[in-house]
């Protein structure tokens, strides 16, 4: 079973990863975007850390709902509402339990990812964060490590794709050959989850 501390650790490790990789995420967002994804994510997760510190939510669901709400209130851009919705809906699906099982978490993440797909209107293959998130939650049935690898591979697999959603889509064929920044940050979040789950 995973308790509230587990979810706080997940957010903390994710935040550290985002901080570490911020420059790279912005770099990826330059040729096919507007060069802000790294600073967007950094601003958001810094705020998440502060909010979790201040409000001290006491259930797994409450941690993720607060994290999601905080992202929505501080990130902006496309990634703010999308990642905000991902965590908020996942948190909502977890309900008010003090501890949740890995299976519950998997189902909740499924609901979260579905909400992202619905909000953004994208599907796997469109060269978005969904190219990392969808294979990751599918692989969660196997293991956290499998999910981490699936997300990582999904992010790498966006390179040859032509973008059909978000800013990169304006480039048409010129979007081919670049890795999607959102898929890359999604892989970081899933890797953070795998890391705390393994600890």
């Amino acid at each position, binding site marked *: 079973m995973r308790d509230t501390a587990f979810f706080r650790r997940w957010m903390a490790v994710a935040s550290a990863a985002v901080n570490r990789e911020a420059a790279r995420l*912005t*770099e990826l967002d*330059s*040729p*096919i*975007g*507007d*060069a*802000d994804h*790294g*600073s*967007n994510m950094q*601003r958001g997760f810094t705020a998440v850390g502060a909010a979790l510190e201040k409000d001290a939510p006491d259930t797994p669901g409450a941690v993720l709902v607060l994290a999601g709400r905080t992202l*929505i*209130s*501080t*990130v*902006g*851009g*496309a*990634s*703010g*509402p*999308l990642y905000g919705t991902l965590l908020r809906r996942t948190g909502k699906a977890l309900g008010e339990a003090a501890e949740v099982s890995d299976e519950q978490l998997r189902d909740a993440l499924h609901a979260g990812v579905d909400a992202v797909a619905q*909000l*953004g209107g994208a599907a796997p293959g469109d060269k978005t964060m969904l190219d990392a998130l969808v294979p990751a939650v599918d692989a969660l049935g196997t293991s956290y490590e499998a999910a981490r690898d699936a997300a990582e591979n999904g992010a790498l697999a966006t390179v040859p794709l*032509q973008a*059909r*959603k*978000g*800013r990169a*889509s*304006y*480039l*048409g064929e*010129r979007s081919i050959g670049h890795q999607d920044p959102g898929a890359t940050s999604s892989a970081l979040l899933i890797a953070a989850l795998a890391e705390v789950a393994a600890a």
Partner: protein
Amino acid sequence: MRMLINVPETVVADALRGMAAAHPELTVDVENRVVVRADAPMAGKVALVSGGGSGHEPLHGGFVGPGMLSAACPGEVFTSPVPDQMVRAAAAVDSGEGVLFVVKNYTGDVLNFDMAAELAEDEGIQIAKVLVNDDVAVTDSLYTAGRRGTGATLFVEKLAGAAAEEGAPLQRVEAVGRQANECSRSFGIALSACSTPAKGSPTFDLPSGQLELGIGIHGEPGRERRAMMTAREIAEYAVDVVLEDLRPTRPVLALVNGMGATPLLELYGFNAEVQRVLTGRGVTVARTLVGNYVTSLDMAGCSVTLCQVDEEQLRLWDAPVQTAGLRWGR
């Protein structure tokens, strides 16, 4: 990095402080990032709220004032603002007659304004929306996020703002804004990339002697790179692409817009070519605006926006406006 800033993290807040100091006629909430007409809410009048990423100044904060926007929400550089800002702005300006959101068509802007609309309506504020999507460089909407909102934003905010100032009800203000967008098309050209504070270097690599055709306003590359063209050739290209899509049957308003680092001297010269092409194509130009209005930080380049207008739209265009970035009449 050759920027006149302190640190990238405070660029937007610093600019808002500086704006507050220069414009006592505006109420600038630096903490919450909302720029409001000091005399809002205006009793009996519909309010207009817009916003978007920073870096396009004077858009949108510079268009807050009598005859145009009631409030603007500046996001981080090139990043749409968050719903909290929009809800706060709507609450600050709503007189009970409702609020029109003017939203440029980008995934981030659309998602955040949609969330804000829901939240504002929960608070009892009537919300209408106009989506601006005038950029003809984005051709295939089925396989993209749809056409970007660029120069037409100025026309939408000016015409709808004039209607609101006259006391038109929300539905009518929304219709005026929607019509302005439908009557407008834009095309943009970059002669250099821009540098965002966060990145500190050009967002893409454009060797001198080359240009990008079909750029947006967020430092993204365009759809095509070519060898440098003359002002005359660029004007012909841009105007023709716009006309092909717009096929105007009425006179047009012409916005010859600088992306930020192109000198006004060059913009006026470019305008001469734009006018020559329009005349050659049999298009009557009712009014022309030349300058930096919808910019992309320090990008060199320009965009052309045409908005075909009827008598009523022309009247709304000519109506007085008193903002930091656009001012005439009264």
